[in-house]
């Protein structure tokens, strides 16, 4: 879909953004990206091209006067509005990777009216212009996290499923309306096969969408030497945290992805809470800064003797208080011991049961459940019920890529996690 602008050609964000799209430091090439209405004029001026050279989808070689010799040659590639990654007018300036060249080009562009792009701002514009879906933003972010997987991406699978679902619904409704009166349309066997295949695709969508979903974040917190690192190790199944009986061993927060129940969590070990020790307070301040509303917080203290600090309560987490090291003495609430082990399964169940239910993975598993019900209804000879379920699945599917209200946070985080030139 192309994005039509009003006649003034007004830029949605009101300005031209520019950033280096390649890593800092010397290399063979450095690419500077520009985006926004009339950014081609800026680029033409910057590399001494005559005006309108970059009108439309063009490639041209110019020369950057701030440099001499081979380092002054710059290749410009332009995309018109509606045909670029962001949906807006865009230019990429491919410069020499020699130190200082890209910086000088950028400096010139900033002086002429461009401004520094915020992290993920190009992608944000693509999202706002409807060029990519929220799901694709999460995919990009996951790819930058290194979580990209081989095979079809979640958004490609959603597109597959969406197409197949539309066809299956049409075939099913055609059979309902016409089969008996006109002997037209597919029989039960063909329809059953269609829906079984749909279910397979839906399972693949769930798996792929869960991969790119924000993992549920679980913070293990508590006073020093409460056994946080032991629990962390136990849950992650490896010797990641440096464990010692000496209080305050964990200085830097450790994080590790692991499975609980049927979903992924990101488990975080944190520095012990003392409330006064300067070093630990700083580590703790860092944890508190990262903690967001809705995160899961496991507050643990031996015999449950320490109340949850106000600073944590203010973050409105999903909170569970645990009496730790219960092999040494029991306390109120959930008693946990890694040594025995005891209470660990209960804790896992607690975390799994309170997992937030939004995000593409959760949305996709709703689609999958609806299609599973639809298959069962078809087998039981209730095509009408199957059709109602397929319609619900269709609606739910749009939430996998578009994401319902309430998922704005994860999109913001994903955009923020992208590098500047993306």
């Amino acid at each position, binding site marked *: 879909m192309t994005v039509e602008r009003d006649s003034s050609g007004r830029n949605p964000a009101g300005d031209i953004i520019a950033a280096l799209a390649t890593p800092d430091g010397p290399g063979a090439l450095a690419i500077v990206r520009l985006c926004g209405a009339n950014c081609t004029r800026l680029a033409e001026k910057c590399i001494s091209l005559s005006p309108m050279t970059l009108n439309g989808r063009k490639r041209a070689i110019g020369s950057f006067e701030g440099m001499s010799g081979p380092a002054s040659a710059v290749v410009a590639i332009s995309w018109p509005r509606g045909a670029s990654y962001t949906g807006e007018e865009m230019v990429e300036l491919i410069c020499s990777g020699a130190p200082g060249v890209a910086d000088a080009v950028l400096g010139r562009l900033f002086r002429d009216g461009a401004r520094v792009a915020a992290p993920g701002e190009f992608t944000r514009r693509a999202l706002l212009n409807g060029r990519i879906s*929220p799901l694709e933003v999460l995919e990009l972010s996951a790819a930058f996290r290194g979580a990209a997987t081989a095979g079809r991406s979640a958004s490609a699978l959603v597109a597959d499923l969406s197409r197949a679902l539309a066809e299956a619904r049409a075939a099913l409704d055609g059979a309902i309306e016409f089969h008996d009166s006109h002997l037209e349309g597919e029989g039960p066997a063909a329809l059953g096969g269609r829906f079984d295949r749909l279910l397979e695709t839906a399972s693949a969508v769930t798996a792929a969408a869960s991969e790119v979903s924000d993992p549920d974040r679980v913070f293990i917190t508590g006073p020093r030497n409460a056994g946080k690192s032991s629990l962390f190790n136990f849950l992650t199944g490896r010797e990641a945290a440096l464990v010692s009986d000496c209080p305050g061993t964990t200085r830097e927060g450790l994080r590790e992805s692991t499975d609980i129940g049927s979903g992924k969590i990101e488990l975080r070990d944190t520095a012990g809470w003392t409330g006064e020790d300067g070093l630990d307070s700083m580590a703790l301040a860092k944890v508190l800064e990262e903690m967001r509303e809705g995160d899961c917080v496991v507050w643990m203290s031996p015999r449950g003797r320490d109340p949850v600090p106000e600073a944590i309560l203010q973050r409105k987490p999903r909170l569970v208080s645990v009496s730790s090291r219960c092999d040494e003495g029991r306390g109120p609430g959930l008693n946990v011991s890694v040594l025995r082990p005891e209470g660990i399964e209960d804790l896992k169940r607690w975390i799994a049961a309170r997992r937030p239910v939004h995000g593409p993975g959760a949305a996709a598993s709703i689609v999958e459940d609806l299609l599973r019900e639809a298959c069962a209804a078809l087998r039981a*000879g209730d*095509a009408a*019920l199957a059709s109602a379920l397929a319609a619900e699945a269709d609606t739910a599917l749009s939430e996998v890529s578009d994401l319902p209200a309430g998922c704005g946070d994860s999109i913001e985080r994903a955009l923020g996690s992208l590098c500047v030139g993306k």
Partner: protein
Amino acid sequence: MKAPIVIVVGGGHAGAEAALAAVRAGASAVLVTFDIGRIGEMSCNPAIGGVAKGTLVREIDALGGAMGECADGSALQFRMLNRSRGPAVWGPRVQSDAALYSKLVRKSLEEAGVILVEDEVTALSGPTERLSGVRLSGGRLLAGDAVVIAAGTFLRGVLFRGRQKWRGGRTGDGSSFALADDLERRGFALGRFKTGTPPRLAGTSLDYSEMELQCEDGPGFLFSFRGRRFGAPSARMPCWVTRTTGKTRRAAMSAFGESPLFTGGITGRGPRYCPSFEDKVVRFPERSEHVVFVEPVGIDSPLVYLNGLSTSLPEQAQIEMIRSLPGCSEARVARWGYAVEYGYFLPGGFDGTLRAAGSENLFFAGQICGTTGYEEAAALGLLAGRNAAAAALGKPLFEPDQAWGYIGVLVSDVTCRGLDEPYRLFSSRAWSRLHLREDNAPLRCLPWALEMGVARPGDADLLAVLEQDADKARSALESCSAEGVRALDLCRRPEIDERDLVERYPELAELDRESFRSAVLDEKYRGYVDRAARRMETWRRLHGLSLNSIGDFRSVEEISWEAREALERARPSNLGEASALPGVRPSDIDGLLVHLARTGGVPRGTHGS
């Protein structure tokens, strides 16, 4: 006080129900038609009902209409379509004795005291805002307090076969040009639609041994929940199935040069789901055969109807096509197929009560509202007749709600959607077909029949019995339990039906069977129906939500830029209009809601389901 007079123009399926409903609602009805002998005629297919349509007939019956009883009384064959596709889409359908059906409709009108007038209505009389009656041929005034126009395909009806073209609403009948002119003078815009009918053959000229037999299926049913009123026809008749061949196709194609469809004679759009054979050849070039049903027209009629071979090709092509069908090599044609192009009122010309725009007492019903099908016409006729009587009596008008049933779906679709082809009712148009079933039509519609004043005497008692039976069945489902499993829980499993339940819980056998079956289906689908109802309710609430507080859509940060542009260009006044715009996605509608909540345009928490 003398009862006010409702004048009904047209004696087809819409006109007949309109006159009957007007009488039940307390008015006197005068029905004006070209030919009293053709009242209630099945101008096309000799059949009533089908998927969704059959459910609509049961709703018409519950609303006091005559179509169900007449169909029951003239049925040559009962079939419940979709028996293997789930009870929510069962479609009762009968093959009718067309002459008998028409006779029963006329009998219903006469018994109700409807005055039948054989004449042509040439114009309306009096100002459109408040008509004083209609003008008949020769300029005579027929005075009345309200007017229902149910002219079917007769408004500027033109018939086509090959290069032949003549005026008429149906073969052998005249056409209403004068009335159409008067309506246009009064500011009503007419569009053009097209439909057609297949040839009728002499039944004795066919060799049925080359065709497949199609008989009545399973246990019988009646459309009318009140039971039989007119007795049953003296015999049952089967249908036959044959198929077109490559020869049929070639015969049709060789005459395309003379087809009014392809040479520009006909400009109106035809129904996509009831196409002519020449349409099928063009649209499905890969299909080597199409099914043709050979349907009897009646016990005393020598004719058979070729369902699936509607055509307006010239006679020579028609006979070649027919003789190419297995079993038809010696066929004699009794009536040729033809197409009819006719005027209909564009949406906006009338509202959901079927009252004409700008008038107190003019109503439209049937095919002139843009629909196709006897059942759709009858439903609209019933509503228009009732509302015409109410307007004349100074009572409030009714607009059927989608929750009542398909009649509400039909009216909402016809008045709100732009039609680009004749509208045919489909079960997939229902907001929840799991709720709008044929089995619960009386329970859904009887309360409205009573409220609108179109119920039959005794209907209030019948409703009380039905509701009592339904309550009994529901409580039995709740209380019955075997081996720790309640019947209520078991019945939600898709593979369990009411017979399985009776087997497992023998005490359920004592309940009224129909009510029990409905109660089981209600329980089975309750969750889905509730969800659908909530979606509809939310949507309805949100649909009218004003967007006027948004000064510039391009500054709404919660939605995509694409949507911002589309919205700013169109500047819709409410959320419903916004959602219909291309480029506006469901997530943008969510975004608009969030924006309105944030900026105080709507209270928080409005966005549900």
